[in-house]
């Protein structure tokens, strides 16, 4: 991904005011995520360390096969680094790709795939690490300029902001599914519907009833079923991408409606 494209995507992501506050798979988010700039060197070193560790695991597999390798170690090393929380709180789409890459390498080894396939999965994972580091660096720039709220500020103040937040929560659904936590992914889908989408669909139905109906079906049928039926991460991501496209349309409709709304006094 080109840096400019990354910058635009990260900007969109971090300005959404969505920052994770829940406990993460590897424990609570540390304070370091509120001062990314000061920790960039640490994150860079961690990425290099991660790549070395993955190379060692794959190298062991290449030399001695599965019996000589601990494929679960691929996931364990990811749980050990602060970079994990830095990317999770700033650019969830790449976070999902990293998990996808981690399991890609692990499953290729566990399935005793040819070394060429394992190496291909390794390359894909390394690309995700670098994309993630790029995203964190961009986020650090905005944070250092005071353009990003700290992680505690999470409540949207308008339906348009709520829709943006819903889009981000759907990214988290993909991330949790890629992390092999399908129940948590479904739970996020339903929580997002009940605590977020329900609050804006009244506004939205006045603008486009069919769009609301489509999203209702996506939230309550299409996305939960894609997760519960054991679809691939790409299939779940495809459902989410389609929903995010509809949410973008919804956001435009609500922005137009707000512009035409009468004043209170």
């Amino acid at each position, binding site marked *: 991904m080109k840096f400019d494209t990354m910058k635009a995507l990260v900007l969109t992501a971090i300005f959404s005011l969505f920052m994770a506050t829940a406990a993460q798979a590897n424990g609570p988010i540390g304070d370091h995520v509120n001062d990314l700039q000061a920790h960039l060197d640490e994150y860079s070193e961690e990425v290099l360390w991660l790549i070395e560790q993955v190379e060692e695991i794959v190298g062991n597999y290449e030399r001695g096969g599965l019996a000589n390798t601990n494929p679960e170690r691929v996931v364990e090393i990811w749980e050990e680094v602060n970079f994990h929380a830095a990317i999770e709180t700033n650019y969830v789409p790449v976070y999902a790709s990293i998990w996808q890459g981690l399991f890609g390498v692990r499953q290729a080894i566990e399935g005793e795939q040819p070394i060429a396939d394992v190496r291909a999965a390794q390359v894909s994972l390394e690309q995700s690490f670098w994309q993630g580091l790029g995203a964190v660096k961009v986020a650090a720039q905005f944070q250092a300029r005071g353009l990003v709220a700290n992680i505690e500020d999470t409540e949207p103040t*308008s339906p348009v902001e709520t829709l943006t937040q819903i889009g981000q929560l759907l990214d988290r659904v993909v991330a949790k599914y890629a992390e092999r936590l399908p129940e948590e992914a479904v739970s996020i889908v339903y929580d997002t519907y*009940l605590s977020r989408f329900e*609050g804006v669909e*009244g*506004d939205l139905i006045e*603008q486009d*009833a069919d769009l609301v109906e489509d999203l*209702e079906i996506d939230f309550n049928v299409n996305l939960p079923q894609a997760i519960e039926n054991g679809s691939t991460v790409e299939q779940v991501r495809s459902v989410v991408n389609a929903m995010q496209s509809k949410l973008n349309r919804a956001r435009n409709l609500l922005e137009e409606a707000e512009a035409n709304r009468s004043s209170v006094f």
Partner: protein
Amino acid sequence: MQRRSLLKVLAAGGSLGSSLLPASLLAQDGEGTQALSVDELPALEGELTLYLGRGEGGLYENVLEAIQQRNPDFELNIRRGPTASLANAIVAEAGAGLRRADLFWAVDTGAIGLISNEGLARDLPDDLVNQLQDTFRYQNFAPVTGRIRTLPYNTERLTAERIPTDVMAIPDSGLSIGWAPAYASFQSFVTAMRLLEGEQATGEWLQKMGRVAKSYAGELGVVMAVERGEVDMGFANHYYTLRLKSGKPDATVDLAFTNNDAGCLVNASAIVALSEGELPINFIRYLLTREVQSFLATEAYEIPLVNGVAPPQGLPDLSTVSPPDVNLTRLADLRPTLDLMRDVGVL
């Protein structure tokens, strides 16, 4: 919590802020008065912190922004979050000897009960309370706008006369029904039924309904299913149907009401003053003005609860619906409702 009848006995807090208001509009002997215009209110000066429960859309934010713009010497700090969480935070803060919020605006009156039961809610002056319709006058909180439980029905499949006016008779009506038992407003409705009809009758009603009703995740889903003809009728708050008809004028759905039972319960958002002084009270007065109440009625289809402001288009006047007399703060008692719904297998 007592209603206006007890207010007369207690005669609590009658003078706060009243001196700033037109004498002709002050309450006389407990009678209702018309809502004020914002032009009749004193300017707000100073700083307040409001805890704001997450609600329908963002129109409360429009109101708060308008109040601040109108009062340049007034600063409003807002903490937003789920209503129940904020209520718990207020109680916890009080337990720790802190008071961070001056006001709490909850989307559901039940949450106010928690605050009230802890003795944290200030009494409101009579002249403010009397601007509210007589069934919505409370000693220490002000309902702001209401929402009524309704029975949306498909107008191509049946007429309103075919729908029972007794909510307890609906499971036996032979109609196909949609409901959203996981939805918070539905659970408040069941709580009201428990209070009005008792545990046993409510449990039996839920069991019968569980056998005949089709479940949806939310109440907009119920209304849309009714409109599609997937079910004959459903249970839902009124505004979903009105908003659907606003966006889709030829929608084949209309509203029916039960009579004087939980099926036509009116619940409300409500605000409570937590700190002393006239500023929090005067802030509440702004929410009860004709302008704010009209704005929320026309833009959000919420039901004005002050005297003299028309309900949203498409909804009959509350006086023609005869909602039940339920102390709204008792709707906070959700745990027995959830236990009952789980016991009979509908949750």
